[in-house]
């Protein structure tokens, strides 16, 4: 059983809150829920929509077809009716508040009104008005499309940004600096809300350059420090990334991508920053690039980022994207948090090559030693990384068809390959690259799935293993939109052997 609902309207009409409320209630009932957000770079007006899919089995993505449309404005109906399934329904009533639709929805899904009331109470504001609207909708609705029962499953519901924040708190974060940039900003919001309760601090500084330099300043005093941004902000940070490289100061950087170049698509999703994350910064220095693929992994990878950054005195980039950052995922397992110690001490640090006291040096002997000492960390990190899930294998383990991907497409791939003959390798460690993955893909029919135009994971695989993925086997989407499981399934099937 799988059911999908599209909530659409103008920015400010509250479609987002609607899908949140329903999602939370369904998760409480023990259903697996996935919600994606599509919104424009504007505050009021325009057209925003969320798609919620729920199921009694794990679900990590949406299909391109919809069972029910909740249209808060007429435009939503016009734009999305073509996505409705043949027996699908659409609800649109002019001049009704969003909670009217919540009322109708809860009735349609045969859910107790009390559940909705609970959620409205949590919203705090406008309670009386909301409850009146919701009641009106609940009483008006007569049809039932799907019966929600009590599944007695203990599930959690959060988006990638919330999960990264959770991971940071569980890893003992002390300081988070940021400059607002979609889609990373909500990590700052989540952490800021909890800063007093958890005793850490969140500071917004004048720009990304200040953010990363302040972070280096804090990190060398021994504080566990993290920063967050998207591609454009990360560009500004790269000189100091190189500084952190030579000073060997630990840093956790959350890089939530959106499509570039430049301002690109400010509120949409893309994976075009892998090359940048791997190569940013002048000179040669070691960094790590880790990539979670769902909310559970966001927590785990964040804790690993703190662990590696502290243990090896390196920058660790957590590479996410808008889809992962803002989609709501249902978590069943308890994430495995890797604890980390604060080992950095304040001494003399230098942006120049320096001697053992921290004084600037131009001595070729010392420079050679420094360079070699810094770079040998790569091997040490590779060895340490063996202890972690650097890549994961899903699907039919003995299949000749191997799908390779990383990050947020994981969800749609998992949903797409349920009953086809394919194995799926998800890369969580991109730098260091897990060489053990080579034997999993060598000689197979490799299919690459990525949200970028040049197949950057494909290039990485070629660089590290010499394995070239044929162009016809690359499924690339670069319009800022995520993969839909049903469409992706068809694309994969065309390439199966």
């Amino acid at each position: 059983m799988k059911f999908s609902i599209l909530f659409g309207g103008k920015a400010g009409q509250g479609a987002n809150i609607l899908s949140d409320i329903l999602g939370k209630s369904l998760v409480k009932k023990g259903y697996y829920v996935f919600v994606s957000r599509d919104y424009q770079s504007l505050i009021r007006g325009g057209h925003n929509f969320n798609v919620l899919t729920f199921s009694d089995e794990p679900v990590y993505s949406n299909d391109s077809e919809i069972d029910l449309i909740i249209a808060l404005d007429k435009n939503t109906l016009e734009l999305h009716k073509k996505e409705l399934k043949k027996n699908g329904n659409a609800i649109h009533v002019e001049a009704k508040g969003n909670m009217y639709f919540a009322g109708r929805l809860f009735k349609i899904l045969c859910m107790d009104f009390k559940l909705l009331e609970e959620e409205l109470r949590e919203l705090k504001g406008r309670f009386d008005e909301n409850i009146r609207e919701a009641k009106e909708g609940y009483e008006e609705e007569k049809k039932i499309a799907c019966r929600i029962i009590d599944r007695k499953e203990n599930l959690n519901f959060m988006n990638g940004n919330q999960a990264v924040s959770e991971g940071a708190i569980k890893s003992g974060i002390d300081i988070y600096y940021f400059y607002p940039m979609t889609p990373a900003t909500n990590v700052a919001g989540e952490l800021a809300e909890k800063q007093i309760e958890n005793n850490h601090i969140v500071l917004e500084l004048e720009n990304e350059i200040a953010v990363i330099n302040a972070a280096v300043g804090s990190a060398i005093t021994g504080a566990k420090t993290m920063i967050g941004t998207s591609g454009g902000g990360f560009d500004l940070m790269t000189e100091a990334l190189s500084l952190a490289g030579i000073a060997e100061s630990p840093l956790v950087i959350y890089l939530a991508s959106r499509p570039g170049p430049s301002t690109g698509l400010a509120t949409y999703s893309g994976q075009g920053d892998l090359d940048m994350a791997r190569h940013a910064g002048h000179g040669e220095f070691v960094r790590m690039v880790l990539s979670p693929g769902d909310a559970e992994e966001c927590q785990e990878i964040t804790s690993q980022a703190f662990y590696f950054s502290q243990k090896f005195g390196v920058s660790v980039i957590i590479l996410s994207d808008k889809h992962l950052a803002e989609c709501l995922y249902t978590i069943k397992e308890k994430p495995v948090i890797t604890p980390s110690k604060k080992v950095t001490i304040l001494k003399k640090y230098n942006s120049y090559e320096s001697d053992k006291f921290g004084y600037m040096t131009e001595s070729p002997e010392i420079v050679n030693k420094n360079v070699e000492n810094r770079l040998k960390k790569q091997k040490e990190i590779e060895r340490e990384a063996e202890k972690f899930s650097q890549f994961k294998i899903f699907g039919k383990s003995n299949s000749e068809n191997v799908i390779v991907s990383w990050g947020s497409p994981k969800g749609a791939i998992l949903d797409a390959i349920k009953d086809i003959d394919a194995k799926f390798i998800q890369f969580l460690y991109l730098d260091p690259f897990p060489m053990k993955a080579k034997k999993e893909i060598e000689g197979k029919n490799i299919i690459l799935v990525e949200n970028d135009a040049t197949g950057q994971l494909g290039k990485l695989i070629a660089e590290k293993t010499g394995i070239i993925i044929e162009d016809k086997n690359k499924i690339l989407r670069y319009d800022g939109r995520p993969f839909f499981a049903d469409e992706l399934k068809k694309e994969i099937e065309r390439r199966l052997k």
Partner: protein
Amino acid sequence: MTSDLNTTATPTWCPGCWNFQILAGIKSGLAEEIKKGKNKDDFAIVSGIGCHAKIFDYINLNGINTLHGRVLPTCLGMKVGNPNLNVIGFSGDGDAYAEGIEHLIHAARFNSDFKYFVHNNQVFALTVAQPTPVTELGYKDKTNPLGVKFQPLNPIKLMLASGCGFVARVFAEKSQIEYIFKEAMKHKGFAFIEVIQPCIIFHNDKGYLEKTYSLEKEEHDKTNFDAAWKKADEFDYSTVKKIPLGIFYQKEKPILEELYPQLAELKKKKMSWKDIKR
């Protein structure tokens, strides 16, 4: 006492550079603080890139010789990381007024409790003589053979306008550095100190010292913003008539480290984040 602050690094400033005087003044100021009971490890220094930054190697204190223009956010980060550290930042005029000028305005606004010395020699000396934003009109070098066309920035006015609670200028003489170091350490909050430090190779003293006078001796009211603004106007960095030295303006206001309860708590308990076990 200053011997503890000495390092084994050999100074590579040009012989006779005014930076030696700044170094001596800072070390003597630090020694005085240590004599009064502070520990060497209670201090940290940060420098940028340029001739000034070599000072990092000549003072035996922890800290970081950071990127060009990024001294201020680095100092801020160190204060947030450990509010009990006494952080002293050093920049050149290129650092402070060109590459990193955005940070200067915000440092005044954030008012984190650290001290900031700008070694202003009115030239990019280490890259061999290019003009900075405070080089006088008409100045020529190989890269600007037509001469500087733009009126220099007035950093004192910029800092006053940005709400800085301690705005001072001194000449690069040991005794003046000692004096202002002491005053800045007494001040709670961000302290901006410009040090006029003529570059003896590329931008020599054009009779600056003779044109200077002491604001203190003239009984300038440093609590009076309008008076400070007028005094700031006396030297435009281009034509040298009068150069007022001393504290233009001083007014204490809440510091960043006390405005956030998390940091205030660390300060109270004499702890840094490193000491927080979770």
